[in-house]
């Protein structure tokens, strides 16, 4: 039965989950002897109080939009792509190869070229687990986890033995040429007369990320392929019966997902460090999981969830700088968000549904008796809706 109105489903459930995560995080801060209110104040001031803070917040958010979209697209086909981290690492390799070995005349062309390479490398890294799932029936979660480790080993090898400039001790590639430098928000906004911090790393990739949100929304809800992906996610037998090929959908979805995760590299590798370093992704692939769960696999939700995590990341860095709270607090918050919005979703949903049932006026029987299954890898949510 459709017991909850749509606004409760889309806004109330995630909000309560978020609130629970926030309360627990506050308790954690209290337990280590710090003041949670002062901590939040410091985070807001550090992340949103200056264009410098905003620059970092938006930079992190750009990463998380890409990885969040990657996880979200896969969720629509009920595939759990946990390998965004590895795909983003490979994307970094693609960007580095394109930036170092092709003489680009202008950054716009470089952005297109390197972005294509990043998406291609990420897509290939996701396509192999996709193929193994579609053709050989091996679980995509396990294979993508394995591919994260294989990617890390591969990058380690390439950076130490192949791409490291002679004489350098640092396991990193050479610096990219000046021609592939992506304009930062400072450089983009200065002609418009808006002053923005010079040293913040937010760059033109942010616009690419926002465009990606729009494209993914169009793809999922306005195209035939998107319809097939969603149909496959809702019911595999029904999709098969309708003539949708499971192999094709699994492969295509994983390729799109991997390409999005790979595309993150234009922000962190090309836009920020301007060379390929070890562990360039800094766990952004995993934060994509939290972002997609919180954003309910919708591009608009992903965008706002990514902003929130960007704020948490920059705020957390400020906390670590000024207080004795280590950066790992963010990892705890991230874990709590994943736990409450993902795994313990029913814990919030079940009492809420009961509450809505209690206040519902007896009326004519609903014409649609079945709950519409939600996108996402949850199983058995319609059975539990009682």
């Amino acid at each position: 039965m459709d017991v909850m109105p749509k606004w409760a489903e889309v806004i109330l459930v995630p909000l309560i989950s978020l609130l629970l995560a926030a309360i627990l995080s506050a308790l954690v801060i209290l337990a280590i002897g710090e003041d949670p209110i002062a901590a939040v104040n410091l985070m807001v001031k550090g992340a949103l109080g200056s264009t410098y803070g905003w620059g970092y917040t938006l930079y992190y958010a750009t990463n998380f939009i890409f990885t969040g979209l990657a996880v979200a697209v896969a969720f629509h086909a009920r595939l759990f792509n946990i390998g965004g981290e590895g795909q983003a690492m490979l994307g970094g390799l693609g960007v580095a190869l394109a930036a170092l070995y092709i003489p680009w005349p202008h950054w716009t062309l470089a952005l297109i070229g390197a972005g294509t390479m990043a998406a291609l490398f990420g897509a290939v890294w996701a396509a192999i687990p996709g193929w193994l799932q579609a053709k050989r029936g091996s679980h995509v979660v396990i294979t993508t986890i394995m591919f994260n480790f294989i990617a890390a080993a591969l990058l380690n090898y390439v950076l130490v033995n192949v791409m490291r400039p002679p004489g350098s001790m640092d396991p990193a590639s050479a610096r990219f040429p000046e021609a592939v430098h992506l304009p930062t928000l400072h450089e983009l906004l200065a002609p418009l007369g808006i002053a923005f911090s010079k040293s913040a790393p937010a760059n033109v990739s942010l616009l690419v990320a926002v465009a990606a949100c729009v494209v993914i929304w169009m793809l999922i809800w306005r195209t035939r392929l998107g319809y097939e992906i969603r149909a496959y996610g809702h019911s595999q037998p029904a999709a098969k019966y309708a003539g949708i090929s499971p192999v094709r959908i699994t492969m295509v979805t994983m390729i799109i997902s991997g390409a999005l995760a790979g595309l993150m590299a234009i922000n962190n590798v090309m836009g920020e460090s301007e060379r390929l370093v070890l562990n360039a992704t800094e766990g952004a692939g995993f934060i994509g999981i939290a972002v997609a769960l919180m954003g309910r696999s919708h591009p608009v939700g992903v965008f706002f969830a990514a902003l929130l995590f960007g704020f948490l990341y920059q705020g957390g860095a400020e906390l670590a700088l000024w207080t004795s709270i280590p950066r790992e607090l963010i990892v705890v918050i991230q874990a709590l968000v994943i736990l409450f919005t993902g795994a313990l979703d029913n814990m919030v949903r079940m009492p809420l549904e009961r509450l809505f049932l209690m206040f519902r006026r007896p009326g004519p029987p609903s014409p649609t008796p079945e709950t519409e299954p939600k996108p996402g890898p949850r199983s058995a949510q319609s059975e539990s809706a009682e």
Partner: protein
Amino acid sequence: MDYITLIQLLDSTVRLATPLLLACLAGLFSERAGVFDIGLEGKMLAAAFFSAALASITGSVWLGLAAGIGASMVLSAVHGLASITFRGNQLISGVAINFLAAGMTVLIAQDWFAQGGRTPSLFGGARFEPITLPFAKAVEDVPFLGPLYEELISGHSILVYAAFLAVPLTWWILFRTRFGLRLRAVGENPAAVDTAGVSVVGLRYAAVGIAGLLCGVAGAYLSTALQAGFVKDMSAGRGFIALAALIFAKWRPWYALWATLLFGLFGALETRPDVIQSVIGIKVQGQLLGALPYLMTVVILAGFVGKAIPPRAGGEPYVKER
């Protein structure tokens, strides 16, 4: 490569395989009961921290072990709550547990010890010391068998012997007891178990609890026996290698032993590149050895070398029919 080098290599294989074996058996219990567990890594890490912390504070490694098991069981309870009671996604719950452990251990370590997310170094009674088996010193000079007994079999901490004993014990529990039969049944066809009047929820909680216990021992071994104290992220992906070993072992206890020993050997070889070079004559990159368990698991999963079929009801929350 001479005989003594081989023995030394196998000795470190055993040391490195022990935490993998314990975590692998933990995953075995959980997944055989139909609950996927990708939170092995996090549970091990939490146990590693709490056992080192308590051992450091109290000076008793046994209290440390108990604390480690306790911490791991708490995370198991969270996993059970999410995936059994609230029928959430078991994979997402596992991911959350891994992050929770990664963050909380550093946070608490910093708060308690203020040493940058580590515990003080452990010594004396705060560590599991190697046990010298009887006559080890006496037979040391016996050719061939002497070093084998003295180096390889004797001289490990008690947790190593416990881990190896856990293999036949797991086999016996799973395949020779009523509890084991039911536990396997609940991973294959929970509806049938329910029809027989046995609690699906109870069995699954029991399995998840055993997994917590074993992960707790694995974590305690990491920080109080293999190393002397906790450092940030010290589980270093071992939980995932254990997961790989579990698939490699096709969810069987004895195979799990061989799989983890094999992966332990890769770990041991990673620290001795000279040995590989002298044996096969080619320089093998350390990164390749590190990635080998994952590569082999992908090949196994792809079904190119025998098929690994997981328990049929794995990952599915059980909903009673009404």
